[in-house]
């Protein structure tokens, strides 16, 4: 991020970085927790695609996207130069988090049998506190970058 940095642009960068960072624990920690589940719980043989996705594929995607989002947030917060690809990666990670939340909600409705209202609360909490701020953060940084380019 080169160019003139005024106080307001620094603030935009800071707020954007913090908002992106809010999505990191959700992706990274739940990715690691799901990988632990995969290796430490008794093995499961199933042909149901939803179970296969949630137990075997989703944890690794979550971990990878969490790492991308963490890198993007760290680069922004430590005032390092950031490539557009990394921002796009962070945006994809945030949207994937929302998509995964919806899928997990459906999965729990079918297989886990927790109270519907509690599940809905958990889902909305994750959405409002983690992934929506991350999406807003990416757009804030993007706008801030465009403004810097215009100034240059």
């Amino acid at each position, binding site marked *: 991020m080169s160019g003139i940095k005024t106080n307001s642009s620094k603030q935009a960068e800071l707020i954007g970085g913090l908002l992106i960072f809010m999505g990191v*624990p959700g992706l990274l*920690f739940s990715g690691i927790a799901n990988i632990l589940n995969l290796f430490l719980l008794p093995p499961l043989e199933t042909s149901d695609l939803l179970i296969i996705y949630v137990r075997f594929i989703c944890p690794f995607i979550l971990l990878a996207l969490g790492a991308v989002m963490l890198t993007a947030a760290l680069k922004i*917060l430590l005032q390092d130069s950031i490539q557009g690809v990394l921002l796009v990666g962070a945006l994809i990670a945030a949207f994937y988090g929302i998509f995964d939340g919806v899928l997990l909600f459906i999965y729990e409705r079918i297989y886990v049998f927790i109270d519907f209202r509690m599940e809905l609360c*958990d889902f909305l*909490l994750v959405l409002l506190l983690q992934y929506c701020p991350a999406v807003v953060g990416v757009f804030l940084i993007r706008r801030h970058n465009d403004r810097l380019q215009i100034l240059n």
Partner: protein
Amino acid sequence: MLKYSNQQVRRLGGVLIFLGGLGFLFSGVKQLLRFFFLYLTTPWIEPSNPVTVYLKFARPFVFPLLGLIASIAAVKAVSNRSIHMYWLVGTLITAFWGVIDGIFLEIYNWTYEPIYIFRLDLMYFLIIILLLQCCPMILGTYLVYRNN
């Protein structure tokens, strides 16, 4: 060796505190919601011992509060605002509380959990809570304190 400015080290400290603090905050808010949900939907049962009181009534309130303190300290550190020592002490308390609570839960669950669930809980505690939340918070607090 790379040389970082004080401001950058302080920011890095803030980011490390934020990593742990957000984890505590999110899990605390989730616990708090569950507490109110169960309080509103299930019949009242008188707690029988201090451990139950802690698990059912103190934990859902302590965790979001400590997580909030750590997150505020992190935001202050990252934005290079002046930060009072109380915030850093609060962050340290949060980190050590996380460690003590995790150890306590492991000992408490030891007796009646199946071994594979206990193993899973133990790994979860060691990797996520200890390694990714508490240790970064302690390290971050030290970095912020050194460059305050």
